[in-house]
């Protein structure tokens, strides 16, 4: 009996939490179908009639799909680059013994703690000098150096890679790069996938850097475009359109999450079981 009560309390609490988490999403969907004036003057969960109108406002400002394509063009390469190069670094730091290994690790941890906003101005100057303003290169290439991801993957590597595996591979005559590609990368893939979700979402939502670096409207990424809806003259007029744009822009994130969630769960539970 006590067990039952405990269980039902648990379920009630969890349901409440789930509602709390999902409610804003629902509200966003509903508000995407209402006019700005309706949104600021009343509150309801019944969808309104203004979906088409909102869509018109959004497309009056920009081409949402162009923005999505632009965002993907930045987020996907950046995610791939950061996943590959971070795992490469992490692997080297764990497996190879060389002078300065410890020092390098410490430096990486230190860099992890510097907020990126701090270096923004210097970064902008660098980009100007390289003549790369208004291009995607400065948004993508720096993803190669991602101290946070290296740090986490290093932990992951230490936990999941057996030296015996490497020895066996070397004995069979595999080169170091081949070992990494054929054996280590697949072993680390759950960890990389987990990190990649974060990287992807981070890049997808990144606002300040593209805002500063991109100048032509047709190169703007999604968040920059959506934010420009705020520049309406009457702040209420575009509320519905903003909700709609945001609702559409989270779709790719939901897809990525659905696709990768099994990796997240497996890599977390992997930590809990003794092999």
């Amino acid at each position, binding site marked *: 009996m006590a067990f039952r009560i405990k269980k039902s309390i648990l379920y009630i609490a969890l349901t409440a939490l789930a509602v709390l988490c999902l409610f804003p999403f629902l509200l*966003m969907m509903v508000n995407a179908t209402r006019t*700005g*004036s309706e949104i*600021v*003057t009343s*509150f309801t969960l019944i969808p309104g009639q203004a979906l088409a109108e909102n869509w*018109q*406002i959004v497309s*009056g*400002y*920009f*081409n949402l799909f162009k923005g999505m394509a632009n965002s993907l063009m930045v987020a996907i390469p950046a995610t791939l680059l950061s996943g590959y190069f971070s795992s490469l670094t992490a692997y080297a730091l764990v497996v190879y013994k060389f002078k300065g290994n410890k020092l390098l690790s410490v430096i990486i941890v230190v860099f992890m703690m510097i907020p990126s906003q701090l270096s923004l*101005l210097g970064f*902008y*100057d660098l980009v*100007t000098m390289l003549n790369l*303003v208004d291009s995607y290169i400065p948004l993508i290439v720096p993803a190669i150096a991602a101290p946070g991801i290296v740090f*986490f993957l290093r*932990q*992951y590597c*230490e*936990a999941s890679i057996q030296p015996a595996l490497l020895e066996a591979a070397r004995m069979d005559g595999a080169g170091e790069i081949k070992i990494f590609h054929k054996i280590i990368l697949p072993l680390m893939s759950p960890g990389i996938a*987990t990190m990649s*979700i*974060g990287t992807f*979402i*981070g890049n997808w*939502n990144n*606002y*300040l850097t593209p*805002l*500063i670096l991109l*100048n*032509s*409207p047709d190169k703007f990424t999604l*968040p920059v475009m959506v*934010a*420009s809806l*705020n*520049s*309406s*003259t*009457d*702040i*209420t*007029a*575009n*509320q519905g359109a*903003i*909700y709609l744009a*945001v609702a559409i*822009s*989270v779709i790719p*994130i939901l897809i990525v999450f659905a696709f990768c969630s099994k990796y*997240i769960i497996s*890599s*977390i539970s*992997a*930590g*809990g079981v003794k092999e």
Partner: protein
Amino acid sequence: MKRRVFALALAGLMTFSMAACGNSGGSSSGGNAAAGTDEAAAEAEDKAVAGSEDAENKLVIWTLADDLKQFAEHYCEQNPDTQIETVVIAPADYLTKIQSAMRGKAKEPDIIVAEPQMLDTMYEAGYLEDLDQDPYNAQQYADNMVDYVWKAGQDADGVQRAISYQITPAAIYYRRDIAQKVFGTEDPEQIGQYFKDYKTILQTGETLKNAGYKIFASDGELGFFAGDSAWVVDGKLNVDQGRKDYMDLCIDLYQKDMTAYVASWSTTWYQGMSGPIPVIDSSTDVWNEEQMQEASESGQTTEVFAYGLPSWGVLTMRDHVGDLSGKWGVCAGPAYGFSGGTFLGINSLSEKKDLAWDFIQFVTTNEDTLDWWIETSQGDVVSWIPTIEKHKEDANEIYGGQKLYEFFLEQAEGIDYSKVTKYDKAIGDAWSAAITSIKTGEMDKETAINNFYDTVESTYPEIEVDR
């Protein structure tokens, strides 16, 4: 053990990325910029670039309000050899964007748009071209421009660097039907008398309260008319009697139950423009329609008599008045004030200054353009005096057929720009924070004012504070 730590770290990271998810929706909505119409904006197609793609001249404009897109379109129709790229940037980040671009010595944008509160920063940083020199000779237009916007476009040395096409004087928007019932008149001149100074406003509030109305939705409505003196005079903080009277008025309005306790730009605030709003007390659920119905039957709702807004409020009100269209009027407030405005300047590094100047002239001084704009925007007030004169007789039906252009011109001519300092925003905010903490009983007056002095002192060490 290590694994457990790792799993924990992962879980933490996931929480973070979730938080990031939520962020995209939260981008600030502080842009109550200039005037224009959302309808017209909806008509403006998906075009950041106006004019034909292969036109030989290309002009780049950076702006924080979408109205210039329409001007650009209009310009390109008449100048087919030009294309104009209008980049609209979210108001909250606009200055950051300009600053970083100018730091990189950018030749584009050719035209920089600014609002009054950013102008000083831009003048000091030297972003904007001197418009007094050849070939611009902007001073030729001085006589035809409303004085305060012309002055606002000048830097500390009086050099013209930016020009605005609109004026944004503040006014009181009031309900004609309530005025008729309570004061026996709805004439703007006479109603203006009920708002002529802070003391009278308090009496007006009392009268309205006795008649069952609220004078304002919030005491913040008077913010545009707060004090008729400069905050900083000769490097010294200046808190004169007017400021203190304003503080007392706000406290009285709040504590004597004359406002509806509604924050400006909130949901209920907008509701008040189209009809009754609930009297806020703990038992009424604002969101519940049934309860609201009951509340209105049992007399628990009230109506708001007046709003204080700049001239672009004409458009805000228009979109929200609903059935009360035609029942609003506009009259003068206790002081002159203004807020917002779209100023255009030329990037001092631009390579297309002639074209940029041509466009600025087209937007600010070309009477055909301005006639077209008044038509398109349905009520925006331009800064070019001959055009306002021409539209003097235009009646606005939403405001009971009142002749608004004439009225706003008068209000704008009363504004004394020499009282405006670059500290106004920060100091004004600190002052209203002090007022809020006094009226809600959080602090006594002395503590709050001392806090205010402390804030000013620590924000601007260069200002001398005489307590």
